[in-house]
């Protein structure tokens, strides 16, 4: 492979032939990468392409099996994250690790090696936050902060170590478009100071907009070094996936609205715990034949809403939730399923599926009541023959890739398990399906398959309600999009009138309250 970058002397970090093997899987295979001073370098790739493994080796959390790392031209061994920080490498993780009951400054203090008085940390954090356009109150409780603000804590925590290279792992996956814009400004300012940034993402538009160079990974190998500004989103996607990306096709919605399948009338819910979001007076109707999307930044009440609709949490009054005309607010999840509803939660392992159980057993998890006649004999004896054949049918219909005949759920990759879980519900031909984050962490091929099968279900006459943080996904699938912010739901906007800006503003909290007034 040719040398990835010509200006070798100016490189801050260079990696040659870096490899990491887990068992028989080559997570990173002979990776070459060079990051120059003062550049924003994108690391692109699908889930499972090896991005996280590579970054963990750079940050000292994983030990490479082969290859060399050069820091400012000198070979280095990065044995642990402390060593990485000492060299000047900082990292902002995708999943924050902040204590919600502590203030921002206290959280920052926890990560510093020395005993620094909280007041001094707060002062320094305040300086940094004004210098880089990251507004933050150091004495605010983390539990009260939005996701975007929490990310700022992580960034300031990282900047306090005065790093020369900052690694950002999928930073915009939790931000509204407007919050992302602010983040890009900050990153631009850091680049202006000569700091280098390694920017991990699978969002092609923002990479094109922000990054100077890109390294594309596929199946653990570098497939290209390129200048993203000279590429199109489609060409970048081709490099990532290896072939044309299939987009779900959405036939026109029926002109006449179908009958109302799901009606939510004034759903409110008190917070279940100190940091969970209360739901405030939510009104919504979903009709047969349509896909309704609910957008929103994570942690704005989506999980609470899902639990309330699925019946994992009951409502105070039966009339709050209507499923196919029946008041279901006091019904548990299985009675709602018997009315024709199906549910797919966000968390695959441990919620949608029991990790240590086989696929045929996980099939029973959501269907032992609705399909009792097929799957259960006298005395509740499980008919293993029919559960196994039904599992086989679902595996075939959804193209679930697995090893072994009937493996445990935890042995499947995220995308394949999600295909199975969605297939388990589609197999019933439900009149209503409520899906929370249908393609979170799922590779592009599987995601397209999942979206298409949900659209097909809607066009066959069922109602589909999709809760997602991924705006691209919602624009691809939905006939109308409503936005959830701080436990409130906006009125649905027909897809023809919806724009990223309009949805983004609602995600940020602009006039979310009007929906209640409009519907009441």
């Amino acid at each position, binding site marked *: 492979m040719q040398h990835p970058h010509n200006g070798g002397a100016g490189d801050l970090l260079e990696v040659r032939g870096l490899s990491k093997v887990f068992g028989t899987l080559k997570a990173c295979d002979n990776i070459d990468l060079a990051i120059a001073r003062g550049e924003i370098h994108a690391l692109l790739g699908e889930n499972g392409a090896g991005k996280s493994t590579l970054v963990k080796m750079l*940050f000292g959390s994983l030990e490479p099996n082969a290859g060399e790392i050069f820091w400012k031209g000198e070979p280095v061994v990065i044995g642990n994250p402390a060593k990485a920080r000492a060299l000047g490498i900082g*990292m902002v*993780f995708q999943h*924050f690790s902040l204590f919600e009951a502590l203030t921002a400054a206290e959280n920052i203090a926890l990560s510093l090696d020395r005993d620094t008085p909280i007041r001094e940390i707060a002062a320094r954090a305040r300086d940094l936050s004004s210098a880089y356009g990251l507004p933050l109150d150091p004495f605010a409780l983390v539990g009260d902060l939005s996701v975007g603000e929490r990310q700022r804590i992580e960034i300031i925590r990282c900047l306090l170590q005065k790093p020369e290279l900052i690694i950002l792992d999928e930073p915009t996956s939790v931000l509204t478009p407007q919050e992302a814009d602010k983040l890009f400004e900050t990153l631009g300012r850091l680049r202006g100071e000569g700091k280098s940034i390694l920017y991990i993402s699978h969002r092609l538009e923002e990479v094109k907009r922000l990054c100077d160079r890109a390294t594309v990974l596929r199946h653990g190998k570098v497939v290209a070094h390129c200048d993203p500004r000279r590429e199109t989103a489609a060409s970048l996607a081709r490099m990532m996936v290896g072939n044309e990306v299939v987009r779900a096709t959405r036939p026109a919605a029926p002109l006449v609205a179908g009958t109302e399948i799901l009606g939510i009338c004034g759903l409110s819910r008190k917070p279940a715990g100190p940091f969970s979001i209360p739901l405030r007076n939510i009104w919504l109707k979903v009709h047969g034949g349509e896909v309704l999307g609910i957008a929103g930044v994570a942690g704005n009440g989506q999980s609470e809403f899902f639990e309330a609709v699925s019946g*994992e949490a009951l409502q105070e009054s039966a009339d709050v939730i209507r499923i196919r005309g029946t008041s279901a607010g006091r019904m*548990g999840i299985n009675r709602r399923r018997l009315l024709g509803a199906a549910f797919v939660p966000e968390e695959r392992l441990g919620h949608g599926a029991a990790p240590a159980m086989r696929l045929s057993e996980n099939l029973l998890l959501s269907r032992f009541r609705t399909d009792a006649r097929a799957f*259960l004999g006298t005395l*509740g004896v499980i008919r293993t023959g029919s559960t196994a054949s039904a599992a086989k049918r679902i595996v075939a219909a959804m193209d679930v890739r697995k090893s072994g005949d009937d493996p445990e759920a935890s042995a499947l990759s995220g995308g394949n398990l999600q295909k199975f879980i969605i297939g388990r519900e589609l197999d019933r031909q439900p009149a209503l399906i409520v899906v929370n984050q249908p393609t979170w962490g799922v590779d592009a091929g599987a995601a397209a398959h999942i979206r298409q099968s949900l659209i097909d279900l809607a066009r066959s006459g069922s109602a589909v309600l999709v809760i997602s943080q991924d705006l691209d996904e919602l624009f691809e699938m939905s006939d109308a999009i409503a936005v959830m912010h701080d436990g409130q739901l906006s009125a649905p906007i027909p897809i023809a009138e919806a724009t990223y800006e309009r949805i983004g503003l609602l995600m940020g909290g602009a006039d979310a309250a009007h929906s209640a007034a409009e519907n009441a």
Partner: protein
Amino acid sequence: MMRIEIVKRPQRSALFSALSPFIALALTVIAGAILFAMLGKNPAEALYYYFIDPLREEWSLHELAIKAAPLILIAVGLSVCYLSNNWNIGAEGQFIIGAMAGSILPVMFPAFQNAFVLPLMLLMGVLGGAAYAAIPALLKTRFNTNEILTSLMLVYVAQLFLDWMVRGPWRNPEGFNFPETRRFHPDAVLPEIWSASGRANWGFVFALLAALALWFLLSRTLKGFEVKVIGQSPRAGRFAGFSTARMVFFAFLVSGGLAGLAGISEVSGAIGQLRPSISPGYGFTAIIVAFLGRLNPLGIVAAGLVLALTYLGGEAAQISLGVSDKVARVFQGMILFFVLGCDALIHYRFRIVRGQPAQTNPGSA
């Protein structure tokens, strides 16, 4: 600086998971040999008297069944608890209360003698044990108390209650002030299975039936599926529409009922009256049995026989080797230690790391 890290193995070996109880038993025997050697006994001879001699005669096989019956009965019930993530440590108390509830008829109404007495006694034993187990279940579901503490503390309540009853209200009026109840009349005694060869009673049959029934329940039915789902991932259980609170009661009532049945079978079959102490710690030893049997009712039958042997071996060693019968407790403790140790090493491996400890990174947690 050197430190030891415990690292989770990416895959656990199916072979070693299955072998784990046997490895544990082998290690127990080796450790036992070392123990006997340190006591100045010939290890081979000591182990022979401990583990082989009790199995050589018909009557002592009957004794083995007598000791195994309560262990198996209690342990299969506990397997339901532990599989569903309910930590009932109080089977000893449920055993005692079951025994006392079942003894109400022969002790307080000795004149009531007919064929119905025994079935009624067994039923009352089951109900007594189940009711006593319902207390920690209620406390857990209503007040979110820790069932390990409450069920354990209730053991001591039960022991002292039994002690007081046999010294006080229930003392045998013709018993020369010995702290014991009147002896059960013949209708109240659990018959022997095959009295020509030994004194094993129907309690052992109950144990085998209970093991078979629970094996069927756990491995073949929706209820067993519910037990396992709630135990492994409570959130998935809720998604399936299973009620965690109802499962707490189910698990505690089943295990308490079986412990109560074990109690009344022991009193009515093996002892024939209530005394201040009616159990050599069956309720606690059954915890070892449950884990040695891999929480599988059929495995528990085998494990129950093994642990019963440690009781018999302890008695035999006392007679033929002149060592304390506390040796039995030592062996039971070693078995549990090695079983848990083997399981830990199957799931995790230890790694010795030299050098500076890695800075725990706040972000990577």
